[in-house]
Protein backbone atom coordinates (compact mmCIF):
# COMPACT_ATOMS: atom_id res chain seq x y z
CA UNK A 1 0.00 0.00 0.00
CA UNK A 2 2.76 2.45 0.94
CA UNK A 3 4.72 1.68 -2.23
CA UNK A 4 1.52 2.19 -4.20
CA UNK A 5 0.96 5.60 -2.62
CA UNK A 6 4.57 6.63 -3.25
CA UNK A 7 4.43 5.44 -6.85
CA UNK A 8 1.13 7.16 -7.40
CA UNK A 9 2.53 10.40 -5.89
CA UNK A 10 5.59 10.26 -8.16
CA UNK A 11 3.37 9.64 -11.17
CA UNK A 12 1.21 12.61 -10.16
CA UNK A 13 4.29 14.79 -9.85
CA UNK A 14 5.55 13.82 -13.31
CA UNK A 15 2.15 14.56 -14.81
CA UNK A 16 2.02 17.88 -12.99
CA UNK A 17 5.38 18.95 -14.44
CA UNK A 18 4.21 17.89 -17.91
CA UNK A 19 1.02 19.86 -17.35
CA UNK A 20 3.01 23.02 -16.55
CA UNK A 21 5.06 22.55 -19.73
CA UNK A 22 1.93 21.99 -21.80
CA UNK A 23 0.16 25.04 -20.41
CA UNK A 24 3.15 27.33 -20.71
CA UNK A 25 4.25 26.45 -24.22
CA UNK A 26 0.77 26.01 -25.65
CA UNK A 27 0.00 29.51 -24.49
CA UNK A 28 3.05 30.93 -26.25
CA UNK A 29 2.81 28.95 -29.44
CA UNK A 30 -0.78 29.91 -30.07
CA UNK A 31 -1.15 33.11 -32.10
CA UNK A 32 -2.05 36.54 -30.76
CA UNK A 33 0.25 38.92 -28.92
CA UNK A 34 -1.35 39.74 -25.56
CA UNK A 35 0.60 42.99 -25.21
CA UNK A 36 -0.66 44.29 -28.53
CA UNK A 37 -4.22 43.43 -27.59
CA UNK A 38 -3.81 45.03 -24.21
CA UNK A 39 -2.27 48.17 -25.64
CA UNK A 40 -4.92 48.43 -28.33
CA UNK A 41 -7.61 48.36 -25.68
CA UNK A 42 -5.74 50.81 -23.49
CA UNK A 43 -4.86 53.47 -25.98
CA UNK A 44 -7.76 53.09 -28.40
CA UNK A 45 -5.43 53.97 -31.22
CA UNK A 46 -4.01 52.28 -34.24
CA UNK A 47 -1.23 49.94 -33.26
CA UNK A 48 0.98 51.05 -36.11
CA UNK A 49 1.24 54.48 -34.52
CA UNK A 50 2.61 52.96 -31.34
CA UNK A 51 6.25 53.78 -30.67
CA UNK A 52 8.31 50.54 -30.63
CA UNK A 53 10.19 51.77 -27.56
CA UNK A 54 7.02 51.58 -25.45
CA UNK A 55 6.40 48.04 -26.60
CA UNK A 56 9.98 47.04 -25.85
CA UNK A 57 9.80 48.57 -22.42
CA UNK A 58 6.60 46.71 -21.62
CA UNK A 59 8.05 43.45 -22.88
CA UNK A 60 10.98 43.98 -20.57
CA UNK A 61 8.71 44.84 -17.67
CA UNK A 62 6.84 41.54 -17.95
CA UNK A 63 10.00 39.53 -18.71
CA UNK A 64 8.74 38.71 -22.21
CA UNK A 65 12.05 39.66 -23.86
CA UNK A 66 13.82 36.67 -22.34
CA UNK A 67 14.07 33.34 -24.16
CA UNK A 68 11.12 30.97 -23.64
CA UNK A 69 12.92 28.36 -21.50
CA UNK A 70 14.08 31.13 -19.17
CA UNK A 71 10.54 32.49 -18.96
CA UNK A 72 9.30 28.99 -18.18
CA UNK A 73 11.92 28.46 -15.48
CA UNK A 74 11.04 31.81 -13.92
CA UNK A 75 7.35 31.00 -13.96
CA UNK A 76 7.87 27.53 -12.50
CA UNK A 77 10.15 28.69 -9.71
CA UNK A 78 7.64 31.45 -9.03
CA UNK A 79 4.86 28.90 -8.55
CA UNK A 80 6.78 27.21 -5.76
CA UNK A 81 7.11 30.58 -4.07
CA UNK A 82 3.41 31.21 -4.55
CA UNK A 83 4.03 33.84 -7.22
CA UNK A 84 2.04 33.25 -10.39
CA UNK A 85 3.30 36.32 -12.23
CA UNK A 86 1.46 39.50 -13.15
CA UNK A 87 -1.62 39.96 -15.28
CA UNK A 88 -0.93 42.10 -18.38
CA UNK A 89 -4.48 43.19 -18.51
CA UNK A 90 -5.31 44.04 -14.92
CA UNK A 91 -1.74 45.08 -14.01
CA UNK A 92 -2.05 43.03 -10.83
CA UNK A 93 -0.42 40.01 -9.28
CA UNK A 94 -2.21 36.89 -10.53
CA UNK A 95 -1.83 35.29 -7.11
CA UNK A 96 -3.72 38.16 -5.50
CA UNK A 97 -6.48 38.04 -8.12
CA UNK A 98 -6.96 34.33 -7.63
CA UNK A 99 -6.96 34.69 -3.87
CA UNK A 100 -10.10 36.81 -4.23
CA UNK A 101 -11.83 34.54 -6.71
CA UNK A 102 -10.83 30.96 -5.94
CA UNK A 103 -12.67 30.84 -2.59
CA UNK A 104 -15.91 31.75 -4.41
CA UNK A 105 -15.49 28.96 -6.97
CA UNK A 106 -14.39 26.47 -4.35
CA UNK A 107 -17.26 27.34 -2.01
CA UNK A 108 -19.75 26.91 -4.85
CA UNK A 109 -17.96 23.76 -6.01
CA UNK A 110 -17.90 22.11 -2.60
CA UNK A 111 -21.59 22.82 -2.09
CA UNK A 112 -22.32 21.37 -5.54
CA UNK A 113 -20.18 18.36 -4.74
CA UNK A 114 -22.00 17.70 -1.46
CA UNK A 115 -25.40 18.10 -3.11
CA UNK A 116 -24.46 15.80 -5.99
CA UNK A 117 -23.10 13.12 -3.67
CA UNK A 118 -25.99 13.14 -1.20
CA UNK A 119 -28.84 13.52 -3.68
CA UNK A 120 -27.22 11.24 -6.24
CA UNK A 121 -26.52 8.39 -3.85
CA UNK A 122 -29.86 8.64 -2.07
CA UNK A 123 -31.97 8.76 -5.20
CA UNK A 124 -29.96 6.03 -6.91
CA UNK A 125 -30.28 3.83 -3.85
CA UNK A 126 -34.03 4.40 -3.58
CA UNK A 127 -34.49 3.69 -7.28
CA UNK A 128 -32.60 0.41 -6.90
CA UNK A 129 -34.36 -0.94 -3.83
CA UNK A 130 -37.74 0.14 -5.21
CA UNK A 131 -36.98 -1.03 -8.72
CA UNK A 132 -39.96 -0.70 -11.06
CA UNK A 133 -41.97 1.20 -8.45
CA UNK A 134 -42.92 4.84 -8.75
CA UNK A 135 -39.68 6.13 -7.16
CA UNK A 136 -37.69 4.32 -9.82
CA UNK A 137 -40.03 5.47 -12.56
CA UNK A 138 -39.50 9.07 -11.51
CA UNK A 139 -35.78 8.95 -10.70
CA UNK A 140 -34.52 7.03 -13.73
CA UNK A 141 -35.97 9.30 -16.47
CA UNK A 142 -34.80 12.33 -14.48
CA UNK A 143 -31.25 10.99 -14.44
CA UNK A 144 -31.35 10.70 -18.23
CA UNK A 145 -32.39 14.33 -18.44
CA UNK A 146 -29.79 15.32 -15.86
CA UNK A 147 -26.85 14.06 -17.89
CA UNK A 148 -28.16 15.65 -21.08
CA UNK A 149 -29.36 19.09 -20.13
CA UNK A 150 -27.01 21.97 -21.03
CA UNK A 151 -26.32 23.53 -17.65
CA UNK A 152 -26.22 27.10 -18.95
CA UNK A 153 -29.67 26.55 -20.38
CA UNK A 154 -30.94 25.01 -17.14
CA UNK A 155 -29.63 28.13 -15.40
CA UNK A 156 -31.57 30.37 -17.76
CA UNK A 157 -34.74 28.29 -17.35
CA UNK A 158 -34.44 28.57 -13.58
CA UNK A 159 -33.78 32.29 -13.74
CA UNK A 160 -36.92 32.67 -15.84
CA UNK A 161 -39.14 30.57 -13.58
CA UNK A 162 -37.85 31.30 -10.07
CA UNK A 163 -36.37 34.73 -10.67
CA UNK A 164 -38.50 36.52 -13.21
CA UNK A 165 -41.92 34.85 -12.96
CA UNK A 166 -42.20 33.66 -9.35
CA UNK A 167 -39.85 36.27 -7.91
CA UNK A 168 -38.55 33.79 -5.35
CA UNK A 169 -34.81 34.01 -5.86
CA UNK A 170 -32.31 36.67 -6.93
CA UNK A 171 -31.39 36.15 -10.57
CA UNK A 172 -27.65 36.76 -10.32
CA UNK A 173 -24.74 37.86 -8.20
CA UNK A 174 -22.76 36.59 -5.26
CA UNK A 175 -22.55 37.71 -1.66
CA UNK A 176 -20.08 36.33 0.82
CA UNK A 177 -21.78 34.09 3.39
CA UNK A 178 -19.85 35.99 6.08
CA UNK A 179 -21.44 39.26 5.04
CA UNK A 180 -25.07 38.23 4.63
CA UNK A 181 -25.69 34.53 5.05
CA UNK A 182 -29.36 34.62 4.10
CA UNK A 183 -28.85 36.53 0.86
CA UNK A 184 -25.77 34.47 0.03
CA UNK A 185 -27.70 31.22 0.38
CA UNK A 186 -30.60 32.52 -1.69
CA UNK A 187 -28.23 33.58 -4.45
CA UNK A 188 -26.49 30.22 -4.38
CA UNK A 189 -29.49 27.89 -4.68
CA UNK A 190 -29.77 28.06 -8.47
CA UNK A 191 -26.02 28.06 -9.30
CA UNK A 192 -25.36 25.14 -6.96
CA UNK A 193 -28.21 23.16 -8.46
CA UNK A 194 -27.00 23.82 -12.01
CA UNK A 195 -23.43 22.93 -11.16
CA UNK A 196 -24.46 19.73 -9.42
CA UNK A 197 -27.15 18.45 -11.81
CA UNK A 198 -24.73 16.40 -13.92
CA UNK A 199 -23.14 14.93 -10.80
CA UNK A 200 -26.50 14.14 -9.19
CA UNK A 201 -27.68 12.34 -12.30
CA UNK A 202 -24.52 10.39 -13.04
CA UNK A 203 -24.04 9.41 -9.39
CA UNK A 204 -27.66 8.27 -9.23
CA UNK A 205 -27.31 6.17 -12.37
CA UNK A 206 -24.12 4.54 -11.17
CA UNK A 207 -25.50 4.04 -7.68
CA UNK A 208 -28.68 2.44 -9.02
CA UNK A 209 -26.89 -0.08 -11.21
CA UNK A 210 -24.21 -0.99 -8.66
CA UNK A 211 -26.82 -1.31 -5.91
CA UNK A 212 -28.87 -3.62 -8.14
CA UNK A 213 -25.73 -5.66 -8.68
CA UNK A 214 -24.94 -5.88 -4.96
CA UNK A 215 -28.41 -6.77 -3.67
CA UNK A 216 -28.34 -9.90 -5.82
CA UNK A 217 -25.28 -11.22 -3.95
CA UNK A 218 -25.41 -14.18 -1.61
CA UNK A 219 -24.33 -12.30 1.47
CA UNK A 220 -27.30 -9.96 1.10
CA UNK A 221 -29.64 -12.94 0.93
CA UNK A 222 -27.97 -14.21 4.09
CA UNK A 223 -28.58 -10.88 5.77
CA UNK A 224 -32.25 -11.00 4.81
CA UNK A 225 -32.61 -14.58 5.98
CA UNK A 226 -31.17 -13.66 9.35
CA UNK A 227 -34.32 -11.60 9.69
CA UNK A 228 -32.58 -8.22 9.59
CA UNK A 229 -34.66 -5.15 8.84
CA UNK A 230 -34.44 -3.59 5.38
CA UNK A 231 -32.79 -0.49 6.80
CA UNK A 232 -30.00 -2.59 8.31
CA UNK A 233 -29.52 -4.79 5.25
CA UNK A 234 -29.22 -1.79 2.97
CA UNK A 235 -27.22 0.56 5.17
CA UNK A 236 -24.93 -1.93 6.89
CA UNK A 237 -24.44 -4.55 4.21
CA UNK A 238 -25.27 -3.30 0.74
CA UNK A 239 -24.33 0.38 0.84
CA UNK A 240 -20.57 0.17 1.29
CA UNK A 241 -19.96 -2.24 -1.55
CA UNK A 242 -22.20 -0.42 -3.97
CA UNK A 243 -20.39 2.85 -3.22
CA UNK A 244 -17.10 1.76 -4.76
CA UNK A 245 -17.97 2.47 -8.42
CA UNK A 246 -19.60 5.74 -7.36
CA UNK A 247 -16.35 6.92 -5.74
CA UNK A 248 -14.63 6.80 -9.16
CA UNK A 249 -17.31 9.07 -10.53
CA UNK A 250 -16.82 11.49 -7.67
CA UNK A 251 -13.16 11.77 -8.67
CA UNK A 252 -14.20 12.70 -12.18
CA UNK A 253 -16.94 14.90 -10.75
CA UNK A 254 -14.35 17.46 -9.60
CA UNK A 255 -13.35 17.93 -13.19
CA UNK A 256 -16.96 18.36 -14.27
CA UNK A 257 -17.63 20.86 -11.52
CA UNK A 258 -14.67 23.02 -12.54
CA UNK A 259 -15.83 22.77 -16.14
CA UNK A 260 -19.35 23.64 -15.10
CA UNK A 261 -18.22 26.61 -13.04
CA UNK A 262 -17.06 28.31 -16.24
CA UNK A 263 -20.61 28.25 -17.58
CA UNK A 264 -22.52 28.67 -14.32
CA UNK A 265 -20.45 31.64 -13.16
CA UNK A 266 -21.02 33.29 -16.53
CA UNK A 267 -24.81 32.76 -16.42
CA UNK A 268 -25.22 33.92 -12.83
CA UNK A 269 -22.54 36.65 -12.89
CA UNK A 270 -20.57 35.11 -10.03
CA UNK A 271 -17.09 36.57 -9.52
CA UNK A 272 -15.16 33.29 -9.43
CA UNK A 273 -12.25 31.86 -11.41
CA UNK A 274 -14.54 30.37 -14.07
CA UNK A 275 -15.70 33.76 -15.24
CA UNK A 276 -12.20 35.19 -14.87
CA UNK A 277 -10.89 32.36 -17.06
CA UNK A 278 -13.36 33.20 -19.82
CA UNK A 279 -12.59 36.92 -19.77
CA UNK A 280 -8.84 36.29 -19.55
CA UNK A 281 -9.02 34.06 -22.60
CA UNK A 282 -10.76 36.81 -24.52
CA UNK A 283 -8.10 39.28 -23.32
CA UNK A 284 -5.25 36.85 -24.15
CA UNK A 285 -4.06 37.36 -20.61
CA UNK A 286 -1.47 34.51 -20.48
CA UNK A 287 -0.48 34.70 -16.89
CA UNK A 288 -4.02 34.56 -15.53
CA UNK A 289 -5.01 31.66 -17.79
CA UNK A 290 -1.85 29.80 -16.82
CA UNK A 291 -2.40 30.41 -13.13
CA UNK A 292 -6.02 29.26 -13.17
CA UNK A 293 -5.43 26.14 -15.27
CA UNK A 294 -2.44 25.01 -13.25
CA UNK A 295 -4.44 25.23 -10.02
CA UNK A 296 -7.43 23.42 -11.55
CA UNK A 297 -5.14 20.65 -12.84
CA UNK A 298 -3.47 20.39 -9.44
CA UNK A 299 -6.80 20.03 -7.63
CA UNK A 300 -8.13 17.46 -10.11
CA UNK A 301 -4.93 15.41 -9.86
CA UNK A 302 -4.98 15.54 -6.06
CA UNK A 303 -8.60 14.48 -5.76
CA UNK A 304 -8.08 11.58 -8.13
CA UNK A 305 -5.05 10.52 -6.12
CA UNK A 306 -7.15 10.52 -2.96
CA UNK A 307 -9.88 8.56 -4.76
CA UNK A 308 -7.39 5.93 -5.94
CA UNK A 309 -6.03 5.49 -2.47
CA UNK A 310 -9.43 5.36 -0.81
CA UNK A 311 -10.37 2.29 -2.87
CA UNK A 312 -8.09 0.18 -0.73
CA UNK A 313 -9.76 1.43 2.41
CA UNK A 314 -13.27 0.91 1.04
CA UNK A 315 -12.62 -2.47 -0.51
CA UNK A 316 -9.89 -4.54 1.12
CA UNK A 317 -10.21 -7.02 -1.74
CA UNK A 318 -8.38 -4.53 -3.94
CA UNK A 319 -4.64 -5.10 -3.68
CA UNK A 320 -2.14 -2.85 -5.26
CA UNK A 321 0.60 -4.70 -7.11
Amino acid at each position, binding site marked *: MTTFIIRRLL*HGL*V*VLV*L*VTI*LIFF*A*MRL*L*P*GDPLLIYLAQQSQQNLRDLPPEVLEQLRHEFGLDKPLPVQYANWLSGIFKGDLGDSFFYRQSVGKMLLDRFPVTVYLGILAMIVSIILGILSGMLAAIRRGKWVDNVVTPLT*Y*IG*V*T*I*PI*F*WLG*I*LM*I*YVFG*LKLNLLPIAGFTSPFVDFGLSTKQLIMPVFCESIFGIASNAR*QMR*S*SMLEVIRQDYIRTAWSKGLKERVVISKHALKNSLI*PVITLIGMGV*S*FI*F*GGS*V*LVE*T*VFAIPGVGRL*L*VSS*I*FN*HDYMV*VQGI*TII*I*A*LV*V*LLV*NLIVDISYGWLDPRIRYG
Partner: protein
Amino acid sequence: MVKKDQESTEKDTTVSGFAEAPPRVSERQRFQRVFFSRKIVMFGMVILVALVFTAIFANLLAPYDPYKPDMSSSLLPPNREHLLGTDIFGRDTLSRLIYGSRTALAVGFISVGIASVIGIVAGITAGYFGGITNIIIMRAIDTLMPFPMIVLALIVAGMLGGGIHNVIIALSIATIPPYTRVTHGLALSVKETDYILAQRSMGASHLRIMMNHILPNAFPPIIVLMTMMLGSLILAEAGLSFLGIGIEPPGAAWGAMVNDGYKYLQDHPILSFAPGLAIMLVVFAFNMVGDGLRDALDPRLRGLL
Protein backbone atom coordinates in the same frame (compact mmCIF):
# COMPACT_ATOMS: atom_id res chain seq x y z
CA MET B 1 -23.11 -31.38 -44.08
CA VAL B 2 -21.25 -31.86 -40.85
CA LYS B 3 -23.02 -28.90 -39.35
CA LYS B 4 -26.40 -30.28 -40.25
CA ASP B 5 -25.57 -33.56 -38.56
CA GLN B 6 -24.67 -31.74 -35.41
CA GLU B 7 -27.95 -29.90 -35.42
CA SER B 8 -29.94 -33.05 -35.83
CA THR B 9 -28.19 -34.74 -32.92
CA GLU B 10 -28.92 -31.71 -30.82
CA LYS B 11 -32.55 -31.95 -31.74
CA ASP B 12 -32.53 -35.60 -30.76
CA THR B 13 -31.27 -34.84 -27.30
CA THR B 14 -34.04 -32.30 -26.86
CA VAL B 15 -36.61 -34.74 -27.92
CA SER B 16 -35.28 -37.34 -25.54
CA GLY B 17 -36.03 -34.93 -22.73
CA PHE B 18 -32.69 -33.30 -21.93
CA ALA B 19 -32.19 -29.60 -21.44
CA GLU B 20 -33.30 -27.65 -24.45
CA ALA B 21 -30.44 -26.22 -26.46
CA PRO B 22 -30.61 -22.45 -26.80
CA PRO B 23 -31.86 -21.33 -30.22
CA ARG B 24 -29.05 -20.58 -32.62
CA VAL B 25 -28.85 -16.90 -33.42
CA SER B 26 -26.25 -15.08 -35.40
CA GLU B 27 -24.42 -12.06 -34.00
CA ARG B 28 -26.40 -9.85 -36.34
CA GLN B 29 -29.76 -11.23 -35.25
CA ARG B 30 -28.82 -10.81 -31.61
CA PHE B 31 -27.69 -7.26 -32.26
CA GLN B 32 -30.91 -6.41 -34.06
CA ARG B 33 -33.08 -7.98 -31.39
CA VAL B 34 -31.41 -6.17 -28.52
CA PHE B 35 -30.96 -2.85 -30.30
CA PHE B 36 -34.48 -2.52 -31.66
CA SER B 37 -36.24 -3.85 -28.56
CA ARG B 38 -36.00 -0.75 -26.38
CA LYS B 39 -38.51 1.97 -27.18
CA ILE B 40 -36.31 4.72 -25.79
CA VAL B 41 -33.44 3.70 -28.06
CA MET B 42 -35.78 3.79 -31.04
CA PHE B 43 -36.96 7.22 -29.95
CA GLY B 44 -33.33 8.38 -29.97
CA MET B 45 -32.82 6.81 -33.36
CA VAL B 46 -35.83 8.66 -34.79
CA ILE B 47 -34.53 11.98 -33.45
CA LEU B 48 -31.11 11.35 -34.98
CA VAL B 49 -32.51 10.44 -38.37
CA ALA B 50 -34.69 13.56 -38.28
CA LEU B 51 -31.67 15.63 -37.27
CA VAL B 52 -29.47 14.39 -40.08
CA PHE B 53 -32.34 14.93 -42.51
CA THR B 54 -32.83 18.48 -41.19
CA ALA B 55 -29.15 19.30 -41.48
CA ILE B 56 -28.87 18.00 -45.04
CA PHE B 57 -32.03 19.68 -46.31
CA ALA B 58 -31.77 22.80 -44.14
CA ASN B 59 -31.97 25.09 -47.17
CA LEU B 60 -35.23 23.46 -48.29
CA LEU B 61 -36.80 23.15 -44.84
CA ALA B 62 -36.04 26.59 -43.46
CA PRO B 63 -38.96 28.93 -44.22
CA TYR B 64 -36.76 32.07 -44.20
CA ASP B 65 -33.18 33.16 -44.79
CA PRO B 66 -31.50 32.51 -41.41
CA TYR B 67 -28.87 35.24 -41.87
CA LYS B 68 -30.62 38.20 -43.50
CA PRO B 69 -31.61 40.87 -41.00
CA ASP B 70 -35.06 42.39 -41.36
CA MET B 71 -35.43 45.18 -38.86
CA SER B 72 -39.14 45.63 -39.62
CA SER B 73 -39.95 42.27 -38.02
CA SER B 74 -37.63 42.49 -35.02
CA LEU B 75 -38.56 40.47 -31.89
CA LEU B 76 -41.92 39.23 -33.10
CA PRO B 77 -43.67 36.76 -30.81
CA PRO B 78 -44.44 33.31 -32.26
CA ASN B 79 -47.14 33.63 -34.93
CA ARG B 80 -48.36 31.92 -38.06
CA GLU B 81 -45.59 33.30 -40.30
CA HIS B 82 -42.81 32.84 -37.73
CA LEU B 83 -43.66 29.74 -35.71
CA LEU B 84 -41.00 30.46 -33.09
CA GLY B 85 -40.91 34.22 -33.48
CA THR B 86 -37.96 36.34 -34.56
CA ASP B 87 -34.80 37.63 -32.91
CA ILE B 88 -33.61 41.21 -32.44
CA PHE B 89 -32.48 41.39 -36.07
CA GLY B 90 -35.84 40.10 -37.29
CA ARG B 91 -34.41 36.72 -38.29
CA ASP B 92 -36.75 33.75 -38.08
CA THR B 93 -35.87 31.62 -35.01
CA LEU B 94 -37.07 28.38 -36.57
CA SER B 95 -34.91 28.88 -39.65
CA ARG B 96 -31.87 29.64 -37.50
CA LEU B 97 -32.62 26.57 -35.41
CA ILE B 98 -32.74 24.44 -38.56
CA TYR B 99 -29.44 25.84 -39.81
CA GLY B 100 -27.95 25.41 -36.34
CA SER B 101 -28.29 21.65 -36.74
CA ARG B 102 -25.61 21.85 -39.44
CA THR B 103 -23.18 23.51 -37.05
CA ALA B 104 -23.87 21.00 -34.29
CA LEU B 105 -23.54 17.96 -36.53
CA ALA B 106 -20.51 19.25 -38.43
CA VAL B 107 -18.60 20.03 -35.24
CA GLY B 108 -19.68 16.72 -33.68
CA PHE B 109 -18.84 14.43 -36.59
CA ILE B 110 -15.60 16.09 -37.66
CA SER B 111 -14.26 16.26 -34.09
CA VAL B 112 -15.20 12.65 -33.43
CA GLY B 113 -13.44 11.67 -36.65
CA ILE B 114 -10.21 13.50 -35.86
CA ALA B 115 -10.08 12.57 -32.18
CA SER B 116 -10.88 8.91 -32.74
CA VAL B 117 -8.26 8.42 -35.45
CA ILE B 118 -5.51 10.07 -33.40
CA GLY B 119 -6.63 8.42 -30.17
CA ILE B 120 -6.95 4.93 -31.64
CA VAL B 121 -3.61 5.04 -33.45
CA ALA B 122 -1.91 6.31 -30.29
CA GLY B 123 -3.58 3.74 -28.07
CA ILE B 124 -2.87 0.73 -30.25
CA THR B 125 0.72 1.82 -30.88
CA ALA B 126 1.34 2.34 -27.17
CA GLY B 127 -0.22 -0.93 -26.12
CA TYR B 128 1.32 -3.00 -28.88
CA PHE B 129 4.90 -1.79 -28.72
CA GLY B 130 5.05 -1.15 -24.98
CA GLY B 131 8.30 0.13 -23.49
CA ILE B 132 9.37 3.68 -24.12
CA THR B 133 6.73 4.25 -26.84
CA ASN B 134 4.08 3.31 -24.34
CA ILE B 135 5.47 5.62 -21.67
CA ILE B 136 5.73 8.62 -23.98
CA ILE B 137 2.24 8.23 -25.44
CA MET B 138 0.49 7.45 -22.19
CA ARG B 139 2.20 10.30 -20.34
CA ALA B 140 1.09 12.67 -23.08
CA ILE B 141 -2.47 11.43 -22.62
CA ASP B 142 -2.17 11.71 -18.83
CA THR B 143 -1.18 15.32 -19.33
CA LEU B 144 -4.50 16.05 -21.02
CA MET B 145 -6.53 14.23 -18.37
CA PRO B 146 -6.56 16.70 -15.45
CA PHE B 147 -8.22 19.41 -17.55
CA PRO B 148 -11.98 19.57 -17.64
CA MET B 149 -12.97 19.06 -21.28
CA ILE B 150 -14.65 22.43 -21.67
CA VAL B 151 -11.74 24.28 -20.01
CA LEU B 152 -9.19 22.66 -22.31
CA ALA B 153 -11.34 23.33 -25.36
CA LEU B 154 -11.97 26.90 -24.22
CA ILE B 155 -8.26 27.63 -23.83
CA VAL B 156 -7.22 26.11 -27.15
CA ALA B 157 -10.10 27.59 -29.15
CA GLY B 158 -9.86 30.94 -27.40
CA MET B 159 -6.14 31.28 -27.91
CA LEU B 160 -6.46 30.21 -31.55
CA GLY B 161 -8.97 33.01 -31.93
CA GLY B 162 -12.39 31.33 -32.09
CA GLY B 163 -14.17 30.34 -35.28
CA ILE B 164 -15.67 26.98 -36.08
CA HIS B 165 -12.38 25.45 -37.36
CA ASN B 166 -10.61 26.26 -34.13
CA VAL B 167 -13.49 24.91 -32.08
CA ILE B 168 -13.19 21.63 -33.97
CA ILE B 169 -9.42 21.52 -33.37
CA ALA B 170 -9.90 22.30 -29.70
CA LEU B 171 -12.63 19.74 -29.13
CA SER B 172 -10.69 17.09 -31.02
CA ILE B 173 -7.66 17.56 -28.80
CA ALA B 174 -9.79 17.56 -25.66
CA THR B 175 -11.49 14.26 -26.53
CA ILE B 176 -8.48 12.16 -27.57
CA PRO B 177 -7.81 10.50 -24.16
CA PRO B 178 -10.84 8.15 -23.91
CA TYR B 179 -10.09 6.54 -27.30
CA THR B 180 -6.47 6.01 -26.34
CA ARG B 181 -7.38 4.52 -22.98
CA VAL B 182 -9.83 2.02 -24.48
CA THR B 183 -7.60 0.85 -27.34
CA HIS B 184 -4.48 0.82 -25.18
CA GLY B 185 -6.03 -1.60 -22.72
CA LEU B 186 -7.33 -3.77 -25.54
CA ALA B 187 -4.03 -3.87 -27.40
CA LEU B 188 -2.28 -4.85 -24.16
CA SER B 189 -4.59 -7.78 -23.56
CA VAL B 190 -4.82 -8.93 -27.17
CA LYS B 191 -1.13 -8.84 -28.08
CA GLU B 192 -0.31 -11.74 -25.77
CA THR B 193 -2.90 -14.09 -27.30
CA ASP B 194 -1.90 -17.10 -29.35
CA TYR B 195 -3.30 -15.92 -32.62
CA ILE B 196 -1.15 -12.80 -32.54
CA LEU B 197 1.88 -14.98 -31.80
CA ALA B 198 0.90 -17.16 -34.72
CA GLN B 199 0.72 -14.10 -36.96
CA ARG B 200 4.16 -13.01 -35.80
CA SER B 201 5.65 -16.41 -36.49
CA MET B 202 4.20 -16.30 -39.98
CA GLY B 203 6.11 -13.08 -40.49
CA ALA B 204 3.23 -10.58 -40.49
CA SER B 205 4.37 -7.01 -40.13
CA HIS B 206 3.57 -4.95 -37.02
CA LEU B 207 1.36 -2.65 -39.04
CA ARG B 208 -0.59 -5.59 -40.45
CA ILE B 209 -1.13 -7.09 -37.02
CA MET B 210 -2.24 -3.80 -35.56
CA MET B 211 -4.61 -3.00 -38.42
CA ASN B 212 -6.03 -6.45 -39.17
CA HIS B 213 -5.94 -8.22 -35.85
CA ILE B 214 -5.98 -5.75 -32.99
CA LEU B 215 -8.14 -2.95 -34.39
CA PRO B 216 -11.20 -5.14 -35.17
CA ASN B 217 -11.24 -6.24 -31.53
CA ALA B 218 -11.64 -2.64 -30.51
CA PHE B 219 -14.61 -1.93 -32.77
CA PRO B 220 -17.51 -2.50 -30.35
CA PRO B 221 -16.23 -0.22 -27.58
CA ILE B 222 -15.06 2.38 -30.11
CA ILE B 223 -18.41 2.56 -31.90
CA VAL B 224 -20.15 3.02 -28.55
CA LEU B 225 -17.59 5.58 -27.41
CA MET B 226 -17.94 7.57 -30.63
CA THR B 227 -21.72 7.72 -30.32
CA MET B 228 -21.56 8.86 -26.71
CA MET B 229 -18.83 11.36 -27.57
CA LEU B 230 -21.01 12.91 -30.27
CA GLY B 231 -23.44 13.84 -27.52
CA SER B 232 -20.74 15.29 -25.27
CA LEU B 233 -19.17 17.16 -28.18
CA ILE B 234 -22.44 18.79 -29.19
CA LEU B 235 -22.97 19.76 -25.57
CA ALA B 236 -19.44 21.19 -25.34
CA GLU B 237 -19.77 23.03 -28.65
CA ALA B 238 -23.00 24.55 -27.35
CA GLY B 239 -21.18 25.58 -24.18
CA LEU B 240 -18.35 27.20 -26.12
CA SER B 241 -20.64 29.05 -28.47
CA PHE B 242 -22.71 30.14 -25.47
CA LEU B 243 -19.54 31.70 -24.06
CA GLY B 244 -18.97 33.43 -27.40
CA ILE B 245 -16.32 31.15 -28.87
CA GLY B 246 -17.35 29.41 -32.03
CA ILE B 247 -19.12 30.25 -35.23
CA GLU B 248 -18.86 33.91 -36.21
CA PRO B 249 -22.03 35.95 -36.63
CA PRO B 250 -24.31 35.78 -38.51
CA GLY B 251 -23.79 31.98 -38.49
CA ALA B 252 -26.29 29.99 -36.48
CA ALA B 253 -25.23 27.86 -33.51
CA TRP B 254 -27.62 26.71 -30.81
CA GLY B 255 -25.41 27.70 -27.87
CA ALA B 256 -24.93 31.21 -29.21
CA MET B 257 -28.69 31.47 -29.82
CA VAL B 258 -29.35 30.64 -26.16
CA ASN B 259 -26.96 33.41 -25.18
CA ASP B 260 -28.44 35.94 -27.61
CA GLY B 261 -31.93 35.17 -26.34
CA TYR B 262 -30.82 35.50 -22.70
CA LYS B 263 -30.86 39.30 -23.07
CA TYR B 264 -34.58 39.23 -23.93
CA LEU B 265 -35.52 36.54 -21.41
CA GLN B 266 -38.17 38.60 -19.65
CA ASP B 267 -40.35 39.22 -22.71
CA HIS B 268 -39.17 36.70 -25.30
CA PRO B 269 -38.15 33.55 -23.42
CA ILE B 270 -38.69 31.41 -26.52
CA LEU B 271 -35.49 32.82 -28.06
CA SER B 272 -33.46 31.03 -25.37
CA PHE B 273 -35.78 28.12 -24.68
CA ALA B 274 -36.09 26.73 -28.20
CA PRO B 275 -32.37 26.29 -29.05
CA GLY B 276 -31.65 24.85 -25.58
CA LEU B 277 -34.37 22.28 -26.05
CA ALA B 278 -32.87 21.36 -29.42
CA ILE B 279 -29.45 20.80 -27.82
CA MET B 280 -30.99 18.67 -25.10
CA LEU B 281 -32.99 16.51 -27.49
CA VAL B 282 -30.01 15.83 -29.70
CA VAL B 283 -27.63 15.02 -26.85
CA PHE B 284 -30.31 12.82 -25.32
CA ALA B 285 -30.74 10.99 -28.63
CA PHE B 286 -27.01 10.33 -29.01
CA ASN B 287 -26.79 9.06 -25.42
CA MET B 288 -29.75 6.73 -25.86
CA VAL B 289 -28.47 5.31 -29.14
CA GLY B 290 -25.04 4.91 -27.53
CA ASP B 291 -26.65 3.02 -24.64
CA GLY B 292 -28.56 0.82 -27.06
CA LEU B 293 -25.47 0.12 -29.15
CA ARG B 294 -23.51 -0.78 -26.05
CA ASP B 295 -26.09 -3.28 -24.84
CA ALA B 296 -26.50 -4.75 -28.30
CA LEU B 297 -22.82 -4.96 -29.23
CA ASP B 298 -21.32 -6.01 -25.95
CA PRO B 299 -23.23 -5.97 -22.68
CA ARG B 300 -19.99 -6.42 -20.76
CA LEU B 301 -19.16 -2.81 -21.55
CA ARG B 302 -21.95 -1.68 -19.20
CA GLY B 303 -20.39 0.39 -16.47
CA LEU B 304 -17.15 0.79 -18.40
CA LEU B 305 -18.43 3.15 -21.05
